[in-house]
């Protein structure tokens, strides 16, 4: 190897410039004897040593007769200074070389020029000491551009390195080779990249992806070839490569959106496992992609929003003309058919959502902008919480996030309203943050919260940070213009500020008052008078100018004072600032026109002063004004219109946020931040009018999609185990995966289990039982899980959705989400799906709906007899509700929607070897023990053999929890199903009840966790009783939460329905229509739980829960709020 190493060195001599070589040769004999201070000494104090040696160097080389330096033009001393380093690099000792390289790198780091050492350093490129080698690389990358010829000498080493068995060496050889910006080697680089792109090691492939933009920036003619490589790498299945190749794509060919089609689904699915930086790049690319490929969800939303109304009027024709402004633009669309989100669009939204929980601010921001630009209005809200979280990060992060929040808050004010207080300003915030927060607060201010906002502003005015105070005053002005109700309050407040001691405050107030007064000048003569008085004291030019303008403009309101002000100003005219002088001329002209008797002389005086002013603007203005107002012989035509010119009514200024319309830039981008297009910014395209063909994203099964894999599996009934090999594909981890089998098993169980709208916790449990899943499966499971969640939502939707318009609405939306969550379904037979999608009418029986939503493996018999009647009763209940509000005796039996919490899965049939178990909370009192929650358990046997001896085995319960087992089921024939009732005393907690389900042969560990709303039973009381009890439960036992009801749940029965779905409470009749009261008792301790919802017609609402069980109360509030605001 040592001999090997000399190779490049020997190349230097014949090939390179003789000078360089001679230089080294000459240098070495001289310094050789001296080159031996003990190595440890050098290592410890390189810096000192360097300085110590410096003087010596100056003397010794002089004698040695350096010969011509590498560059003859350079001064003698310059190259000589590094002789010791050269000497060290030439030795055979690695430690010396290392030392030398370290010092050289330190020079580079400090920005010192070390280029003359190039020949000496480049020789060491093949040094076998890896650290020396690395440092040489650092050096080479830094200086190769300047000394291209010499750099070429190192190429052969890298070419050898590319063949090294060690992947790290291959990768770093490629890295350096591609970083040397020498145009001559472009073909070599191209070759190397192509080779590395098909390397076995994903790490090397990643490096190849990185090399692509490097080569592109060196020689853009290679684009076509590079695109081929990108295309190849895009098909790569490893998470390691994904981020890097998308980055290369963005830099080289962002316009080739067609390359993404085939990889779209893969990228969406891999996303969660890609490293953070890759996630950011991929998400922002996918945002652009989605904008070109999918239809806008918002334009159709306006359709949806209007639908209930239309149903109300009942005429189809209305739909044609009804549309508001937003729709008018989209009317041309084939909009009549209901909007259906492309499943791929949904996939993207679904797979990015968990990334809002990322620790990286950049990722969170990327997801936030994706949601902002792509998600339907109703879903955008989820990003608010995450963005607010980022406000607790470093101030630079806050700065960027606040800019984006400011833009978003203009478009979607409601999104951030609940977090208003998070934008309150802290005295420790830097000024720029304060001003941005102020901007957000102003954007968020509305009729309801303006009092609190103004109170905050009042505090800010007393701040010591004057820039901030000025911004606050402007913010008050903006609030006043936007919210008419508080205009007078604000104006009064601002007038009070006029007596502030700080001149800046006063000046800013004047400017803002001026703008406000323009809106309604007539009523504010007093304020104008007050302002006129201020001219004596106030010195800030802008403020003086504003006052003068105001007096001039509204001189009719202050006929007595105006001439006097002009008199004073004429006196001090010469000492004024230019901007003030201009306004004095204006004032004079206006007064002359309205009140020439008193002011003629004054005006003439002012104009003559202005005529000889130093500033030509003022001279011009004076000349112009004189011609206009003073009638002269020839200029009569214009002066007749002088009054119209000067005293024309002027429109009031609009105080607008500077962040308005900034959202035409992609949020989170540099361009958005600067509000100017940055180099290389890719415009966010508008939504297409017509959706491009979605089938381009379909991929043949073997190529890769998890979805189609799964689909296939489902068809084949039970290939779970055999398929696990191909399944571990998505992340293609380097380490083999011994548990993939069990993991895929549990995953598939959870996935197919989702068909029965199982609860998450259950499928999760099986997973635990099966042993933990290996990580490579993470994304897999992830999507499986997500699906489960979706389904659950569906179930809820059905629970509530059975009455009139709401019913059809929710069921159509649920079927939509259903469809979208099943990409594979869509993929295979999109047409059949289309047929199923039209929104089901209200009369569609829900049971049927379930089977429609179901996957093939759902066993029909398990649609239990329980559900149909209860559904009827719910719908009846809700129908009746509107009619019989005060009829309390009627309510109880009907109001508890049995299917409130839909069917949850206890045991999936795969995990249960053919035995599938579901449970529902029946909400009926458990006969054995009133403290117990009664749980209906549905068994169905889908195996070939009868299952015998079903019973509950030894429960492992947390303290306090007890179970009343169901009677043993002796036998369950194949295909048969049975229902049993068991009681569980949860002890008023949401702890999990774990128990075993035993058959004759097997035992299954299962668990039930109750939603908090199931831990109570309704009680019925009168309004007075309710109030009395509520009075006892104040203070700590009262939990209040403010919320905004979405438009969809403002009507009585929907609110009631939503609340009762979440919690098993009884409605308490009450007099006022905006108030809803519910009461219940917890099952175990019998503590009262009182829930009050006070809804305003505007949608703002306040939820109060009174209960001595604080934990239950808190959780209940959370659940109810979630249900209501969904």
């Amino acid at each position, binding site marked *: 190897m040592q001999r090997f190493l000399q190779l490049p060195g020997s190349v230097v001599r014949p090939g390179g410039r003789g000078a360089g070589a001679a230089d080294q040769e000459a240098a070495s004999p001289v310094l050789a004897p001296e080159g031996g201070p003990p190595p440890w000494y050098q290592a410890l104090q390189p810096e000192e040593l360097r300085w110590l040696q410096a003087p010596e160097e100056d003397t010794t080389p002089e004698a040695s007769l350096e010969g011509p330096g590498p560059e003859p033009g350079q001064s003698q001393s310059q190259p000589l200074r590094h002789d010791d380093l050269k000497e060290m690099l030439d030795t055979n000792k690695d430690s010396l070389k290392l030392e030398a390289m370290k010092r050289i790198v*330190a020079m580079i780091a400090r920005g010192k020029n070390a280029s003359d050492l190039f020949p000496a350093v480049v020789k060491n490129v093949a040094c076998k000491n890896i650290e020396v080698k690395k440092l040489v690389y650092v050096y080479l990358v830094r200086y190769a551009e300047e000394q291209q010829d010499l750099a070429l000498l190192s190429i052969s080493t890298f070419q050898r390195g590319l063949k090294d068995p060690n992947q790290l*060496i291959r990768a770093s050889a490629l890295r350096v080779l591609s970083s040397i910006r020498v145009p001559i080697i472009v073909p070599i680089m191209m070759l190397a990249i192509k080779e590395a792109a098909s390397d076995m090691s994903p790490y090397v492939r990643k490096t190849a992806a990185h090399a692509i933009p490097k080569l592109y920036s060196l020689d853009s003619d290679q684009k076509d070839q590079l695109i081929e490589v990108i295309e190849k790498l895009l098909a790569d299945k490893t998470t390691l490569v994904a981020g890097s190749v998308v980055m290369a794509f963005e830099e080289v060919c962002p316009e080739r959106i067609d390359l993404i089609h085939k990889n779209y689904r893969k990228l969406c699915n891999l996303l969660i496992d890609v490293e*953070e*930086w890759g996630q950011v790049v991929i998400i922002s690319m996918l945002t652009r992609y989605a904008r070109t490929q999918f239809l806008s969800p918002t334009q159709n939303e306006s359709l949806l929003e209007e639908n209930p109304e239309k149903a109300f009027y009942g005429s189809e024709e209305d739909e044609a003309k009804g549309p508001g402004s937003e729709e008018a633009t989209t009317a041309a669309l084939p909009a009549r058919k209901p909007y259906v989100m492309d499943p791929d669009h949904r996939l993207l939204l679904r797979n990015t959502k968990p990334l809002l*929980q990322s620790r*990286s601010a950049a990722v969170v921001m990327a997801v936030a902008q994706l949601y902002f630009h792509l998600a339907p209005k109703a879903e955008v809200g989820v990003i608010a919480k*995450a963005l607010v979280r980022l406000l607790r990060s*470093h101030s*630079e992060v806050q700065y960027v996030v606040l800019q984006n929040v400011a833009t978003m808050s203009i478009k979607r004010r409601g999104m951030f309203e609940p977090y208003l207080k998070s934008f309150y300003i802290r005295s420790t915030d830097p000024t720029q943050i304060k001003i941005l927060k102020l901007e957000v607060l102003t954007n968020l201010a509305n009729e309801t919260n303006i009092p609190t906002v103004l109170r905050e502003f009042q505090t800010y005015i007393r701040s010591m940070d004057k820039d901030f105070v000025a911004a606050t005053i402007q913010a008050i002005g903006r609030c006043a213009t936007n919210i008419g109700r508080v205009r007078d309050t604000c104006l009064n407040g601002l007038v009070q500020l006029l007596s502030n001691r700080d001149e800046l405050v006063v000046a800013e107030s004047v400017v803002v008052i001026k703008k406000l007064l323009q809106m309604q000048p007539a009523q504010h003569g007093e304020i104008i008078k007050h302002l006129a008085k201020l001219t004596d004291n106030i010195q800030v030019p802008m403020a003086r100018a504003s006052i003068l303008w105001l007096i001039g403009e509204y001189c009719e309101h202050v006929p007595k004072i105006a001439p006097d002000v002009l008199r004073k100003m004429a006196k001090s005219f010469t000492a004024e600032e230019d901007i003030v002088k201009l306004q004095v001329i204006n004032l004079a002209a206006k007064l002359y026109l309205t009140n020439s008797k008193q002011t003629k002389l004054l005006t003439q005086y002012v104009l003559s002063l202005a005529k000889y002013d130093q500033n030509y603007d003022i001279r011009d203005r004076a000349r112009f004004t004189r011609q206009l107002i003073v009638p002269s012989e020839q200029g009569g035509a214009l002066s007749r219109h002088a009054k119209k010119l000067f005293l024309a009514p002027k429109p009031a200024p609009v105080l607008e946020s500077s962040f308005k319309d900034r959202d035409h830039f992609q949020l989170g981008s540099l361009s958005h931040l600067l509000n100017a297009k940055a180099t290389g910014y890719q415009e966010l395209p508008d939504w297409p009018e017509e959706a491009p063909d979605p089938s381009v994203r379909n991929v043949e099964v073997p190529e890769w999609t998890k979805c189609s894999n799964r689909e296939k599996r489902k068809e084949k009934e039970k290939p779970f185990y055999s398929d696990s090999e191909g399944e571990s594909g998505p992340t293609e981890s380097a380490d083999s995966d011994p548990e993939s089998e069990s993991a895929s098993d549990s995953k598939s169980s959870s996935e197919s289990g989702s068909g029965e709208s199982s609860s998450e916790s259950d499928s999760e449990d099986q997973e635990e039982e099966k042993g933990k899943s*290996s990580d490579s499966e993470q994304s897999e499971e992830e999507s499986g899980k997500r699906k489960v969640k979706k389904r659950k939502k569906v179930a809820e939707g059905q629970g509530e959705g059975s009455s009139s318009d709401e019913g059809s609405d929710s069921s159509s939306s649920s079927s939509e989400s259903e469809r979208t969550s099943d990409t594979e379904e869509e993929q295979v037979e999109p047409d059949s799906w289309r047929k199923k999608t039209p929104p089901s009418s209200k009369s569609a029986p829900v049971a049927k709906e379930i089977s429609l939503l179901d996957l093939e493996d759902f066993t029909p018999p398990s649609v239990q007899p329980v559900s149909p009647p209860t559904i009827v009763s719910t719908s009846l209940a809700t129908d009746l509700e509107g009619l019989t509000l005060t009829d309390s005796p009627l309510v109880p039996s009907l109001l508890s929607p049995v299917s409130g919490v839909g069917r949850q899965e206890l045991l999936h049939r795969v995990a249960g070897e053919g035995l599938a178990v579901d449970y529902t909370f029946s909400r009926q009192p458990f006969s054995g023990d009133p403290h117990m929650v009664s749980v209906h358990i549905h068994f169905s046997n889908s195996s070939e053999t009868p299952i015998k001896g079903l019973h509950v085995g030894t429960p492992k319960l947390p303290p306090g929890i007890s179970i009343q087992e169901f009677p043993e089921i002796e036998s369950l024939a194949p295909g048969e199903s049975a229902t049993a009732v068991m009681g569980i005393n949860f002890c008023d907690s949401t702890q999990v009840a774990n128990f075993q389900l035993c058959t004759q042969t097997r035992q299954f560990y299962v668990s039930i966790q109750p939603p908090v709303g199931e831990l109570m039973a309704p009680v019925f009381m009168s309004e007075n009783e309710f109030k009395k009890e509520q009075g006892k439960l104040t203070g700590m036992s009262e939990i209040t939460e403010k919320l905004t009801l979405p438009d969809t749940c403002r009507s009585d029965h929907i609110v009631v329905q939503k609340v009762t779905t979440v919690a098993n409470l009884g409605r308490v009749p009450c007099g006022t229509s905006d108030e809803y009261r519910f009461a219940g008792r917890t099952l175990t301790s019998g503590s009262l739980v009182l829930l009050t919802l006070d809804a305003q017609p505007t949608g703002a609402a306040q939820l109060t829960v009174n209960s001595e069980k604080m934990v239950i109360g808190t959780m209940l509030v959370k659940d109810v709020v979630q249900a209501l605001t969904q």
Partner: protein
Amino acid sequence: MIHSLFLINSSGDIFLEKHWKSVVSRSVCDYFFEAQERATEAENVPPVIPTPHHYLLSVYRHKIFFVAVIQTEVPPLFVIEFLHRVVDTFQDYFGVCSEPVIKDNVVVVYEVLEEMLDNGFPLATESNILKELIKPPTILRTVVNTITGSTNVGDQLPTGQLSVVPWRRTGVKYTNNEAYFDVIEEIDAIIDKSGSTITAEIQGVIDACVKLTGMPDLTLSFMNPRLLDDVSFHPCVRFKRWESERILSFIPPDGNFRLLSYHVSAQNLVAIPVYVKHNISFRDSSSLGRFEITVGPKQTMGKTIEGVIVTSQMPKGVLNMSLTPSQGTHTFDPVTKMLSWDVGKINPQKLPSLKGTMSLQAGASKPDENPTINLHFKIQQLAISEYTTINKAIFKTT
């Protein structure tokens, strides 16, 4: 992406530069210095400065400006986040991140930076991986290296890089296997002058120090996880598991890391464990003002309040203050008008107070702004939210 990085100290010297693409002249920093001059304080330097050909994105930490130069559109948070990650990495490597330390370890710094970015795109940013590639300097290793000639640079690709757990290095061995979790909760409140809370929020983090052999798979569950309102996780946490079961399941990185940070949804009131009584008055006629503050505990559940530091920015009109604290030490900087009082522990029997007079500018009218009082304190062994107790932890090692 990121073109170059300049490290600038508070006196405006560029003491380190690193280029990942072609060299960008350091004169580009002049635009930065200009902006720095315009902003009176270091915190007020805008994080993004456009210049004719480049954009400068900077973060300010440990009295050092980290200025990244970019040329094309990049999400600004991408760069800012990366710069913060750089600082964190330095801190991890050297214990502190300061100018002298960086200068002393310039070669390691350079090697680390080289690994972190390739052509301006982040390559390896996990400290576990970086530490395998470039070993952090320790005294022992320096000595060993000089004697044996071995190096700080690893010659094998870190195994973690290729695995599905890129944050953990492999082959970890400990004789004592231990894992520590610190639950740190911060309460952040704005209180008006009458003492009523305007906003208060509880944020918490769980910092972990895990020293376990092999590939441990840990599970943590909480007493009442539902109250964790908003969480963000280290990438190692299995998100879907949290989604469904509210259980933290993860393969931890080796060493110190932040497992999660959360926000507690405090429905209404957060009990603030201290109160401040203040009496600050300026009189119009005289040039003296009175100043008196007392700090006392409130609802601390028997825990002592420690590390109390009171700072207050006094109005410009205040020339000097003569104060006597009942305990601790205080300083007043007449230039910045910053009063700071290091109180230490609060003894509930004898409440600490700071009394005295302020001398105001003669002739000037009384300042009309109220000084803001910032209070920092620490309470050990008390979780404000009380909900975040870790219920059980399961350690599985494979």
